[in-house]
């Protein structure tokens, strides 16, 4: 299956993140645009890893800002993984699958397939929980979760495919 046809059949994680941040947290536009210059795998590695504050002339504070973008991206990835695991055949856990994963890691943007209403509700719930955990207010968490659902709806049949997001274009 080619990337083109994949896009038509789902929505890219990065597109959802971009759309939600644009609507709900515009102050993080620079963060998202910056992240979009990397591949999905690179972004996830950066968001999961802890940055070492060893700059001798840094400000010297390791205080973390309550950013929405990392929470959102990581939650969507977790949801995508969960949904994918549910549908993937057990045999795909073999070495061929691993090889495919490794290849995909470098190039292909992660895709969320068209979701059912129940699945959308699941994702919405996951986002709300993660946002609450990250210290966002309930109202804000709900707004973001709604934004995610709206973004995911882009992949529903009949909607036009998203444009522009082709991954690690730097």
């Amino acid at each position, binding site marked *: 299956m080619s990337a083109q046809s994949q896009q038509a059949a789902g929505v890219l994680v990065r597109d959802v993140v971009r759309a939600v941040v644009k609507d709900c947290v515009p102050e993080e536009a620079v963060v998202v645009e910056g992240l979009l210059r990397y591949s999905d795998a*690179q972004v996830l590695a950066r968001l999961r890893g802890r940055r070492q504050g060893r700059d001798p002339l840094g400000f010297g504070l390791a205080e*973390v800002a309550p950013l929405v973008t990392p929470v959102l991206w990581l939650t969507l990835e977790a949801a995508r993984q969960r949904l994918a695991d549910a549908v993937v055949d057990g045999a795909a856990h073999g070495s061929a699958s691993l090889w495919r994963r490794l290849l995909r890691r470098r190039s292909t943007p992660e895709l969320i397939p068209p979701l059912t209403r129940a699945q959308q509700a699941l994702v919405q719930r996951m986002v709300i929980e993660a946002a609450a955990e990250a210290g966002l207010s309930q109202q804000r968490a709900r707004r973001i979760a709604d934004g995610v659902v709206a973004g995911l709806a882009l992949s529903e049949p009949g909607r036009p495919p998203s444009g522009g997001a082709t991954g690690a274009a730097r």
Partner: protein
Amino acid sequence: MTTAASVRVRLDERIVGAGTNARFALLILLLVTSSGSMLLPVLDALHSGDFDGCTLAAGADPAHSTELPSLLRVTGQVLAFLPCVDRYAPYPPWWQILAGPAVVTAVAALTMAALPLWKQRAAHCVRLDRIPAGAEVAARVQELAAGRVTQVPRLFVVPGAATRSAAVFGTNGSPRLVLDGGLVASHATDPKTFDAVVLHELAHVANRDLTVTYGTVALWRTFIVVVIAPYLVWLGWERSLGIAGGHDRTPTSLIVRALALPAVTTAMMYFARADVLRSRELYADLTAHRWKAPLEHVWAAMPATVEHPRGPWSVTALLDRLRTHPRWEIRRDALDDPAPLFAVSAMLMFLTGVMAMLMGFDLSDYTSAHPAVLTGWLSEGIAAVPAAVATAATTATLWRATIRAAALGRRSPTGLRAGAWLGLGLIAGSLLSGQTTGDLWLPRRMWVLVLVLAAAVAFTCWTCQCARLATASWPGRTLRLPLALCLTVGWLLLAAWFGWWDNNAAQYAVGFWYDSAGMSQAIVHWFPGVGTVHPAAISVMAETVPALRIAAFRPLMPAATVAAWMTPLALWFAGTAGPGPGWLRPLGAAAGGGTTTDPTTARRWRVPGARRVTVSALIGGAVTVLGVAGVQVWLHTLHAGPGQRGGMYAFSYAIWSLWAITVGTAVAAATAAASARFRLLTALVAAGISALLGLAGTTVLISVDGCVQPLDVLNSSCAWRPAWQQLQPGNTFSLIAHSALLMAPVAAAVITAAAVLVRLARRAVRGSRTAPAPRPRVDLPRTETGDRLAGSAVLVVGVSVLAIVAVLTAGDARADLTPAGRTTAASEAAFQQTSGLPVLPASSQLRWQQVHAWYRLGGRYLLEHAINDADSMVTQLRSAMRNKQLYITPALMTGMRPVCQDIRNVASWEPSGYFQVPDPTAEKSWHQYGVTAGNGSQDCMRAVDEKDVKAFESSIIELLTARTNALDASNRVKAIINDPSDPVFNGRPTQPPQPL
């Protein structure tokens, strides 16, 4: 009345230089210099030669070559040793020795250039101008930077980092600012935090922190790869070779020290760098604060932490010292009161001491590979490098602490604690480098290390009191000029001290001392004629004079000893001539000692008057004159006749006069040290002027010796005979002048320490009674005449001091500029006489090795030639025998001349052309040969030339005795080698290395 708190706010942390650049310089220089000395053994391993052969032939032990007896064997035979090394194990050439530092510097420069490229790599961060949404953020940074930094940094963002932080990197000329994603996002949500963080980073740019910080980082990384790695590889290789070969006799202490060196260097690097960076952070905070950065907003958002009580040496406290950023509570408090930037840190002092000592040792290591080039001035120049950085680092810190105390009207630091830590650091550096220990774990003479501690404390106390004097009275609006003066003189003092310590005094700790019997013999011959004094006096002189002579004749010593007391005198004069401390005026009238609430503190800041110093100096001068007159009276009572006024008699006249001067300076110092304020400085100035007066008085008294009958010592008639001409032999008058100048500050420091101890003891005995009521301050009306008088007096003292220093330094110039390589046979003999040439107690195996090496590298050649020449002489003599009767004919005499010439050539290798035989019995015979054959051959040639048959006959008898000596020596050597099939007997003998 203005409160201390309000003054505190107005005391600008930039009032004098921070000294952090000096600390960075210390770090950088230490790395660069140790890159040379740590690579030297690696280089030596690549230049394998027969160095051990030369060491053995000299009668030393290669396994304990840094131990004193071995060092003395080698140094005492330097005329033979240097040519031997030059031939069999040439030292690496200069370009190779200097290649280490050069390569490290070059690679560090490349790393420095590559570091920003690595930090801004695309995988790590994104250029902000490539993100359309970043325009607003960039505009805000530009706005904040406008007018504050000359170079607006290029901007980058790390989108994956959620921290609200930022960092600058690159160089001062091309700064880069990288913002974390969290901070970029807070540009809209929390602009105050954004501004505070960005302004802090811009403050780093404005404070020019970038180049020096990342330069150190680059240098350190280079050092690990280029120096530490090969060094450890070499160490491992050498050890494993030694262990595998079963001949590893290296003492454990040396191995541990070799391993500890990189470890301690690393630890020091981290502690020292973190210390500097922490203060740079505070400076950046304060700069940003001045730019109205809302830093309080950032600190207000920080979670409250519970303070746990902890000691200064707890693990947490030590870990804190490794942090490059101070804890946020410290940063918050520093905005209100930048006390940490004015504090004297014990660890900083300690580290400065260790690094300076290691650097000095590293630098002397460079020349130890080429000892022949070393001159007095070169060794002083080498010592001046660690002295410069150590002075800059400590003086800046101590001045800052003093200035703060002055501004707040508090007690100023005494320098005692700082000096103790500095001294301990110096001692630690010395022990780590092995400079004072040789192959042992600890020095043989531990007490010598007290000299290090004492010197460090004296230096810091001097610096603190000079700073206090300047802050209390300097009329200028800034303290830059007195600080510069103090820095320069402090440098001079430390350079003179390091020169003396590295080249001479450290050896005393190793165990070296002068051979007093040899010294006595040398002194006896300085003054022609005979003459003696009490034997106890002779032995005291022989013990002390060499050490005093060595210290006093160091090239920088006259200038340094005089500057030690001329500096406070100049500061005092400048202060009393002006209208009071000018730099305090902008801070308000409350600042300074005058009107603080604590009267005892206030008194401490008051500048002393001239009277006490003047009176003390005059008393000291008078004591000296009386003392010298007393010496003359005493020597006069010995009733030495005109022929008995040489030798020890004349020398002791000079030395007793010197002690009279020293007693005078000590009395002057003691009288002045009774002062409650500026005790060290008043003692120094009084002792210095007293020494000048005493020297002048002594010179006059000796010059008119013979004019007052009860005071006659050297002359019986009255005439003006300049003292410097009468005491010219052995450079004795110069010794008095040099030593008088040296003893003035030394006596002042010792007396001050004693005065402080007495005061403390008295206070302890009396108990803590109520403090005495403050005396009302009486300011005598200043008169123009008084000012002019004081000015003239200071001018006269200054000019005479300059003249004396110039004359003394110029007088020593020739000796100080002569390289050690130009040692003459006479100076080597003098060294052997004053220092001794011990015969190492050796196992039979080591003795075999030594004698074998001696025989192999030139001994066999000399012995065989000596015996062959003697044999050919005997053959010729036999041919002239008739009926067992020797008939000396002109033909025989003419035929013998070339043989005598040959014998003379062989004998000329003894005693300094080639090594002494390491076996005492063989050496005795060989030395006997040298003396007898030398004389006999000369007599022989003279007799032939003068056709003197009788003289020829007696010369032949001498040469026949010499033949027996040579045979004895040869037989003894062969008996020790004890193996006729040894390869050393095969082939042609090797000629000893020709003198350089």
